[in-house]
């Protein structure tokens, strides 16, 4: 296991460089948007990776609620954190793309708003984990994750209807992608997913180490013979 990590890290690095080459050089330039469209190759994979991580978080939270398994809880914690990082990338690159193309930074369109709401929910999840004082953090966090997941379809429908009611700037997204563009997109997605998995793994190992250490510290007195100390005091 210990040797696997550096090997995977190197492989991910190679994959990321190749994906970047694909995105910036190989993929054809989009006709109307020009080179700016290349933001697409890290904007979209970030979103997909974030959504997958949030989905894993939901499953892990359910498993925790049923089984009270500490590993499931750590998985949920890790995927939420890394998911928020990828979601942040998506939300930051979005406006940078939108500005030159649509002339505005932000629009309350369905996908954008949905991503923003998801980001808000998972940030509140992380804040809850940080602020809860008791040993019951995993339970409370898992409950919140379930509520958040239940919220997603409702958010989706509300924004979908909100949008059809109020006219919005028309967003070009229709039309088919050039096969070389698809290729670059998928390679980038694969690379970013591997990168995400790698970050999750490091974060997971850090969490395991921290919990082990906390437990050792808490139970430190068990290592010492108690009875002699009791008498001397």
């Amino acid at each position, binding site marked *: 296991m210990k040797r696997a990590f550096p090997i995977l890290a190197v492989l991910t690095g190679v994959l990321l460089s190749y994906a970047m080459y694909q995105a910036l050089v190989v993929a054809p330039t989009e006709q109307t948007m020009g080179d700016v469209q290349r933001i697409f190759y890290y904007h979209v994979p970030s979103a997909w990776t974030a959504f997958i991580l949030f989905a894993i978080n939901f499953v892990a939270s359910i498993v925790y609620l049923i089984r009270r398994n500490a590993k499931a809880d750590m998985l949920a914690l890790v995927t939420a954190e890394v998911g928020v990082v990828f979601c942040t990338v998506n939300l930051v690159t979005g406006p940078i793309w939108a500005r030159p193309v649509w002339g505005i930074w932000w629009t309350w369109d369905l996908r954008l708003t949905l991503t923003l709401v998801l980001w808000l929910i998972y940030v509140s999840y992380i804040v809850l984990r940080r602020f809860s004082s*008791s*040993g*019951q953090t995993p339970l409370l966090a898992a409950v919140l994750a379930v509520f958040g997941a239940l919220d997603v379809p409702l958010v989706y429908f509300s924004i979908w209807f909100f949008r059809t009611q109020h006219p919005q700037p028309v967003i070009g997204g229709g039309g088919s992608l050039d096969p070389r563009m698809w290729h670059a997109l998928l390679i980038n997605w694969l690379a970013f997913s591997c990168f995400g998995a790698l970050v999750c793994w490091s974060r997971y190992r850090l969490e395991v180490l921290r919990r082990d250490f*906390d*437990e050792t*510290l*808490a*139970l430190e*007195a*068990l290592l010492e013979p*108690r*009875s002699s100390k*009791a*008498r001397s*005091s």
Partner: protein
Amino acid sequence: MSAAVIVTDLVKQFGRFAALRGVSTEFAAGRLYAILGDNGAGKTTLLRALAGLTPLTRGSISMLGTTDLRSVCGQLGYMAHPSLLYDEMSGMENLRYFARLYEISDRGQNDEDRCADVIRAVKLDPSLTRPVGQYSQGMRQRMSLARALLNDPKILLLDEPFSNVDLRSAREMVTLLTGLRDAGKTIFVVTHQAALLEGAADEFVWMEAGQIVSRTSDLAATTETK
């Protein structure tokens, strides 16, 4: 004599601090236990764990023959350091509400009568209309004991019942407790005033740093080694 409570390897961890570090012991039915120890020794945490208020990090508790504490919580009486009473309501109003929670009227006794009986048992007046918030500390403490006795529990868990109570009232409470013990109840009393229970408690349980360090029936013997 059967064991009323069996605890095995109780560990309760709060982050980097453990309030209980592997407590394993048995407590027999029908006896009065005094749990003693310094602040932070884990006395209150142990009591809360027995009451089912604290989810454990590790270990198990078997009470009245079952490990499902939820199923026996109706047989439990719990008195905490805070009063567990609504300050804005009178003693009778408080108890009437808690009687509903235990569905005492289903056991064949009228709520009103039962509440009045327990209040009289702790030497208070059921007709007092003053809200509990205006009681003296000693009265509030006794009303709190009445609340714990309301469901006629088999196991009584009392956290510091004598704090801020004058000596005479404390003695009366001890007499009440020994009477309950003689009626077959298992009683745990966490206290700093061990001397009050000398001759009354069947056993003194000393805790230190989250573990039970000694159990003895003779208070004088343990205080000597301390």
